[in-house]
């Protein structure tokens, strides 16, 4: 979707302001949100792409106003409601519907580190061959999907060069809609800064993006 989350190349957000000696969490609730999100994710009722899309679909003004962990809180609430793990009435009352039996959490403390260490790899076996070889000239498609996509607006329609392929990876556009992983080749594509930003850019500079086959055309 052409959302406010797709920020590459925008102006007006001011300087970047590093914070000396920044703590991991600025308040204990931030860590609890991170932990809740990961722990309830153990039910495997959604995937990382669907999760990202719940953040992208926050109202744009909220997206810009909320902090990272506030966005995660809103997103987690949307996800547990959408998955039917929690009802709206339970959320409002703050208590379990007595008609619903108490569940057993899938992620227990002893499984936390192994789960973190395992992560969620997105590389998939495929018998397909990559469509593009290193060095091939490509153009990012000028498409405007209304759902989740990882093709930023600032490269759409721009020419780049295939740097390498990373094998077949889960395709976010379909996975976010629970329409299947549809694994396809993922490429690192180099775009010259001048191709993206015009003649004022430094001719030595470039931006690299990881783009799926469905985002690219041969030139």
């Amino acid at each position, binding site marked *: 979707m052409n959302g406010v989350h*797709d*920020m*590459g*190349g*925008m102006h007006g*957000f001011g*300087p*970047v*302001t*590093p*914070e000396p000696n920044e703590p*991991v*969490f*600025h*308040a204990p*609730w931030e860590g*609890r949100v991170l*932990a*809740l999100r990961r*722990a309830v994710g153990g*039910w495997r009722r959604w995937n990382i792409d669907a999760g990202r899309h719940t*953040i992208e679909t926050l109202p744009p003004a*909220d997206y810009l106003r*909320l*902090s990272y*962990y*506030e966005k995660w809180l809103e997103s987690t*609430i949307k996800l*547990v409601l959408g998955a039917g*793990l*929690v009802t709206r009435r*339970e*959320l409002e009352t703050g*208590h*379990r519907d007595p008609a619903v039996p*108490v569940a*057993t*959490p899938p*992620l227990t*403390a002893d499984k*936390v*580190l192994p*789960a*973190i*260490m395992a992560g*969620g*790899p*997105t590389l998939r076996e495929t018998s397909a061959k990559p469509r593009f070889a290193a060095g091939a000239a490509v153009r990012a498609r000028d498409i405007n999907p209304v759902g989740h996509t*990882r093709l*930023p607006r*600032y490269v759409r329609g721009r020419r780049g060069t295939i740097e390498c392929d*990373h094998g077949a990876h889960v395709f976010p556009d379909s996975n976010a809609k629970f329409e299947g992983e549809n694994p396809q080749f993922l490429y*690192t594509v180099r775009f010259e800064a001048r191709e*993206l*930003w015009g003649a004022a850019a430094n001719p*030595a500079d*470039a*931006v*690299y993006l*990881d783009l799926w086959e469905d985002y690219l055309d041969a030139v």
Partner: protein
Amino acid sequence: MAHDHDHPHDHDHGQEMPETALRVKALESLLVEKGLVDPAALDAIVDAYENKIGPRNGARIVARAWTDAGYKARLMKDATAAIAEFGYSGAQGEHMVVVENTPAVHNLVVCTLCSCYPWPVLGLPPVWYKSSAYRSRAVIDPRGVLRDFGVSLPDDVAVRVWDSTAEIRYLVLPERPAGTDGLSAEALADLVTRDAMIGTAKVGAP
């Protein structure tokens, strides 16, 4: 639990927002009551990211690459496997690539679409990395962003920006500073900062 954020506050920090803290507490209490999450697991997750998984991991990788040519070769060829030699793997670092800074090339990592970041080697991202300012400008004005961090690059040093649009996560291998020939890998790791491994800083001499 209706959305309730209509007052102004500093959106880049999570401080002094008692209503948010209360909403998180209410959600946690409900999820625990329903048996959907184990409170001990929540503590373990917070502990992992507060105390176990952080930029010290990445610094050890960098120091080893500086002191062991064989390791560096493995790291540049298959970063995921070379990083796993240290026991670092998993969530938000499932597929790793290391990019090397040289006198001619400076690398900078960003995620313009959200805040993708190599957690197993750097821990959780700092607030500035997640900020709209960094995400918007890193790709169009990387040299200006570097100046915000006090790094000024000559025009003939090529800047390569890596926008983490998929599940590949990037770690910058900074240049080893001069005057560090006699240092052990452990002493070298002490010099390597988180920002140097994102590409917004250089590693200074001891």
